[in-house]
């Protein structure tokens, strides 16, 4: 009797909802909150490579943070990360938006071609990195060959081994990789704008630019906010491309925070240093995530 009552409680009503919440929260606690807190804790401790199995380690206060700020590579890597994120997102978004608008025009095969664009995004970043490595190769790369054939350059550009170019080469590959994702999300947003608004504006004599500036852009606001927020998060996660293309070199010219964090944690085993970089990135991502959540809420209120 009691059992069947409990089963009924679980099956419908409050009990069922509660179970769902508990399951989701448990999952988050184990797979998201715990590693996150563990990383933050490590950034305040002295971590040795053989004390990874325990949480009890000497407390280091803010020492890891001050050590990090005093490293000669700190400022250049932070600056590289800013350039990497800003340029990647600016170009991914504008090109993605332009393509989304382009495919919105009803021409034969437009939906299929738009689908094909996703192929690039499906490829693992390591594979994309290997392909771009061949394109960017200094002596026998495709890009140099193309530019020389077009008469645009004379000598070789060492895209990956010249410190003046390395960061921008990684950014170009990352832009290419991110465009399809931006385009699809923005296409979905565009599809949500009711067609009669445009019709009405057209009847009132608004030209194509006026329609874009006064209807498309404002109505896409929340979507754009969400796409930018997701873009920042994905770009800050972009580790594989750096690993495949330059390993942060030459001379840290293309090193970015996420790769630096990995280098410290798993190459030189300065685990607290790696955790400190990761913690600062978490703080930044939380800010961006809040913006994302708020813009999604605004989107829902439409």
């Amino acid at each position, binding site marked *: 009797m009691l059992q069947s009552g409990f089963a009924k409680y679980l099956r419908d009503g409050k009990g069922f909802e509660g179970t769902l919440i508990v399951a989701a929260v448990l999952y988050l606690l184990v797979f998201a909150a715990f590693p996150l807190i563990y990383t933050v804790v490590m950034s305040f401790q002295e971590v040795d*490579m*053989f*004390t*990874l*199995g*325990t949480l009890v380690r000497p407390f280091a206060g803010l020492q890891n943070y001050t050590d990090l700020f005093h490293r000669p590579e700190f400022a250049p890597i932070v600056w590289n990360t800013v350039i990497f994120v800003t340029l990647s997102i600016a170009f991914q978004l504008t090109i993605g938006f332009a393509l989304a608008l382009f495919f919105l025009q009803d021409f034969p095969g437009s939906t299929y071609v738009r689908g094909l664009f996703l192929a690039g995004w499906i490829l693992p970043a390591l594979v994309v990195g290997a392909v771009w490595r061949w394109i960017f*190769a*200094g*002596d*026998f790369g495709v890009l140099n060959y193309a530019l020389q054939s077009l008469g645009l350059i004379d000598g*070789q550009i*060492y895209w*990956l*081994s*010249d*410190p003046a170019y390395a960061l921008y080469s990684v950014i170009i590959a990352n832009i290419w990789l991110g465009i399809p994702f931006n385009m699809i999300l923005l296409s979905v947003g565009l599809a949500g704008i009711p067609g009669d608004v445009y019709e009405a504006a057209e009847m009132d004599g608004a030209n194509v630019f006026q329609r874009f500036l006064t209807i498309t852009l404002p109505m896409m606001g929340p979507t754009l906010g969400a796409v930018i927020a997701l873009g920042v998060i994905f770009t800050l996660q972009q580790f594989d491309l750096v690993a495949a293309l*330059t*390993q*942060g*070199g*030459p*001379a*840290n*010219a293309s090193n970015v925070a996420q790769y630096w964090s990995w280098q410290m944690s*798993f*190459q*030189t*085993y*300065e685990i607290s240093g790696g955790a400190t970089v990761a913690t600062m990135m978490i703080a930044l991502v939380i800010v961006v995530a809040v913006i994302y959540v708020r813009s999604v809420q605004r989107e829902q209120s439409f």
Partner: protein
Amino acid sequence: MMRKLLLGLVFSTAATSAVIAAPVTLQVWALDEPVHFTENMAKEFEAKNPDIKLDIKLVNFANILNDTIRAVSTNTAPDLLMLDNPDIASVASHDVLLDLSDRIAASKVVDAKNFYPGPINQSTWKGKIYGFPRGGNTLGLYYNADLFKAAGLDPTKPPQTWDEISAAAAKLTDAKKRQYGFGFSAVATEESTFQFLPWAQSAGGDFNAINTDGSVRALQFWQKLVDDKVATPEVLVLNQPDLGSQFVAGNIGMIVTGCWELPRFAKEVKFDWRVALMPIEKAGAPRASALGELAYAVPKTSAHPDEAFKFLEYIYSQSSRDWNEYGWLPLDQTATPKDPKWPEAYSVFAEQMKYARGRGPSPVWPKVSKAIQTAIQDTLTHKTDAKTALDTAQATIDGLIK
């Protein structure tokens, strides 16, 4: 009652003796690609020792140190594992590996007198041997004899000093064809430290004397090769396999790389290629080369160290097969193959192995190596000059190894 008790006693003794007779199973973590060395050795060993079974788990190179650290810190280490040789000191310094010195000294199979000095020094920390190298590999100078002839160089007299390397490299370089005279790897990983140290060592430097005049001259020499465009600026991003591919394609006349490339080159290279000893600074300077290869280690927590060592003895007893079947030089200098593959290359590398010097040993090797990599990259990109870069590296290293 009494009978029951007796019966129980009989049963329990039977059970105990059954446990004793049961075969021991060794947990082994092996890094076995692409040659399946440990797996093959294990099969042969099991056939000869039916009371010992080996349960082999394969690990990959990128994870091996991380896996070891995780296993040791959670008390789940196997009975036998493999480490890249510069990592032995790091792990041993935490007092988690078994000291093998006494077992080696007492062994009837292993004779420490015959060890090549490089590999065993690399496995030694504070006078005790913690690693058992499965063999050793080292660097040599590979050159394209066809390009030598075309450039008017004598392929029977490969360059042996730095000056000769520069001169030959200049002749082998053809900017129009994007053909370079010389190649090495200065990529921002362990590989560049591995490649650079022999040059510094031949000029009297080492990892802990990295800002000596000799080390500075070595780095300036590398820098000049790139500045003079007889080596491609791509050395900053080429790892050793990439470098090998450029050599195979005929784009680089001479490269420095390891004996592990022999099987590939024998299969893929379409021209007359040969091998010579690593160049030295000038006639009479000491010879030096790098030392790579994996080593076995027994974690202290192993319940079966004797059986694990018995397996290592078996591997050692098969050393003379290493070169022909697996492509590296054995730990045992006297274990020469009967009919070596690539006989000229074999004699070069067997000679070169005598001068192979390890990296470190240092318990903080990855950080030491990182300081050297940074100096190399900063110098070749002209971010700073060789002397300043190596002074910085030396200061970092001094802080680490104190």
